[in-house]
């Protein structure tokens, strides 16, 4: 269902990509050293963690359909915690926990 995909993340600048629903979203990510924070706008409020394919899209074609999702990545006790918040959906949250292989 979700084949292996290559995605590109950029920190410190805005970029766009097509999410898993095929919606165009825009993302702005910051690397603060001990954590990252990214804000994804558009689509249906999808989470950044689901595989997507990045594309080059002209800015004027961006259509904001959905809400805003804020995603945090933190490492605590050698575990990667990826917290996603749908701010326009009553701040519903999901946490994914990863361990390094």
């Amino acid at each position, binding site marked *: *269902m*979700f084949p292996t995909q290559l995605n*590109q*993340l950029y*920190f410190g600048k805005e970029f766009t990509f097509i999410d898993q*629903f095929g919606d165009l979203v825009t993302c702005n990510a910051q*690397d*603060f*050293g*001990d*954590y*990252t*924070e990214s804000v994804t706008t558009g689509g*249906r*409020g*999808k*989470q950044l*963690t*689901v*595989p997507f394919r990045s594309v080059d899209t002209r800015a004027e074609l961006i259509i904001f359909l*959905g809400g805003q999702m*804020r995603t*945090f*990545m*933190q*490492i*605590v006790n050698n*575990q*990667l*915690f990826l*917290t*996603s*918040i*749908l*701010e326009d*959906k*009553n*701040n*519903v*949250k*999901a*946490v*994914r*926990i*990863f*361990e*390094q*292989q």
Partner: protein
Amino acid sequence: MISKNSDFCEAEEDVDDFLMRNDLLHRLPKATLNLKGKSMTNSTTPTPSSGNIESAENSDIGSSGDKTVSDPGVSVEEVTLPREWVPKEKLLLESNSKEVSTRRTKSTTTTSTTTTRTTSTTTKIHFMDKLTTGNGRWRQVKTVGLDEFLKAEGGNWIYRNVASSAIPDFIYTKKGEK
């Protein structure tokens, strides 16, 4: 029905409680938290143990420059005591003397302190650099609140089941840095 992998678990607990218990709240906007009536005793100041190690260049350690500290110099004080302070025995021995002089000496020490100026370089470690260490491969071992999140996303039943059943491996590689 799509069955989940036995190695993987979706924790059935409140997401905010989970975040608070694991000390993950300090970066999240307070407006997004639902912590009414909950104590944030587990929330501590973030420890940037793995964060940016940034030290200022030419930082001074201690006071700047060479410094010499001197106590008051050596002094010799001559005190003239009145006659009534002289012991009687001494008066008998030195009956002819009109006054007795006593010398007191104060010893002082001159201390010279030298401080060193240390220069260190600025080292900035990005968070993503930590993710790419080793093989950069991270396996999802647990989720909290994912089912509700997927519902709020608006995906259909099939999508939600597939997405919640997936156990993704993330492989992070660094392509460049500006």
